[in-house]
């Protein structure tokens, strides 16, 4: 069986945390450039120019793109033929987050308990989702998630007999109610099916898909186009100052579900759309 040192996992996680906070993903950068060219609202155009200029300064000086450097959400695809040695996998991921947030001068936003709320001072623990997959690799997908956009995200159990229309209404309603609060232009992840927690989980996974990429199934790809068009008719615009680009893209993920159930989760990703992926 292939072995991977826990210390290597910690190093990779630390590097991904820093890179995500300092360097905008290429696909988001391109989406901003396109936004700058296509947005017809002068306020909106100005926001895209500011986002591009900020991204350049942040990358050059290795400074955080946004002051909300988030709570770190980590998806691990753990190959069943690989073993982590010299420490625990979860311990290594936590250590990586701790290292990055200290050495990278990133803001520590995590509190120890949702009720008591004392800052843990090292931005741990991260939120870790691990699945066992085929192969002998460890894939790490990581997102420092801001509160502004997470706070406006929603989940609901809807009547399955109402189908697509009720899903569409819920997604549009979520973006409409959120208005400027989640810091548009956004990426919208929509999780449909499974159970309550499965829908929420796949709505977050959907955010990792690059802007412009469509669901491989034609019908869902079409639904994504329809949703993108609907939310951008709201007029909220970049930073909520009015405009035609409130959302850069909508990504749908689905999962089989109970015949009597339909969960829908809508996870919003702010314009400081930060995530990185690596494979060990």
């Amino acid at each position, binding site marked *: 069986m292939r072995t991977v040192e826990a210390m290597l996992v910690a190093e990779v996680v630390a590097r991904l945390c820093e890179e995500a906070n300092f360097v905008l993903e290429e696909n988001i950068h391109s989406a901003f450039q396109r936004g700058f060219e296509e947005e017809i609202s002068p306020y909106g155009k100005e926001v895209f120019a500011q*986002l591009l200029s900020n991204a350049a300064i942040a990358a050059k000086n290795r400074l955080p793109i946004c*002051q909300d450097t988030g709570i770190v959400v980590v998806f691990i695809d753990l190959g069943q033929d690989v073993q982590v040695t010299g420490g625990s996998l979860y311990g290594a991921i936590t250590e990586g987050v701790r290292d990055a947030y200290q050495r990278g001068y990133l803001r520590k936003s995590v509190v120890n308990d949702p009720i008591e709320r004392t800052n843990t001072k090292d931005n741990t623990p991260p939120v870790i989702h691990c699945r066992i997959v085929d192969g002998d690799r460890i894939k790490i997908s990581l997102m420092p998630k801001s509160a502004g956009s997470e706070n406006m995200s929603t989940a609901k159990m809807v009547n399955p007999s109402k189908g697509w229309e009720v899903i569409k209404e819920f997604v549009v309603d979520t973006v409409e109610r959120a208005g400027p609060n989640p810091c548009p232009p956004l990426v919208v992840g929509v999780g449909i099916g499974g159970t309550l927690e499965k829908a929420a989980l796949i709505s977050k996974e959907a955010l990792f898909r690059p802007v412009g990429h469509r669901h491989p199934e034609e019908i869902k790809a079409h639904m994504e186009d329809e949703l993108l068009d609907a939310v951008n008719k*709201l007029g909220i615009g970049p930073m909520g100052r*009015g405009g035609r680009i409130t959302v850069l893209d909508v990504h749908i993920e689905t999962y089989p579900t109970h015949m009597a159930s339909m969960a829908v989760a809508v996870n919003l990703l702010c314009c400081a759309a930060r995530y990185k992926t690596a494979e060990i």
Partner: protein
Amino acid sequence: MVIKRVNTPLTDEVVQTLAAGDHVALSGKIYTVSDAAHKKLVQYLGYGRKLPVDLSNQVIYYAVATPTPPGRILGSAGPTTAERMDDYTPALLGQGVKGVIAKGYRKAEVLQAMRHHRAVYFGATCGIATLLSMYIKKVRLAAYPQLGAEAIYEYTAVDLPLVVNNDIHGGDLQREGRIAYAITQGN
């Protein structure tokens, strides 16, 4: 694009001239007030105590910066969501606050209180915290050091780029902007 140069402390005369949608380059001292600092300030007022910072005619900034790296005076410092401070805002307006820098919606009653106290809601772009920090030339700890990053800091800003979200005359950029660009059915 016309940019209005505005200095703090903010006077009623200047506030009067600002309209929703105006681009503003703000210079002078501004004070960061976090969630925790809001809570503390309003608690102080409840006890009838004098605030540790005189907020009369001042502009407050809803921001908690990232830690300051070596060689810089400030980390990244962008605006946070205004709504979370809504319950505390009327009390601080009563202390003479003339402007707030934040992002997002505010409750209607808070906007009304702001008009009543002749205070402006300035919008700063979020997601550009590094860029915004470049307009802050001096940083001083002003109060509540025990709150760490959430303490009240006095920033000296030079031409901080802002947009007036809500003026004292009822103008509302976020509402008007949305109406202007919304595509309703049939269009």
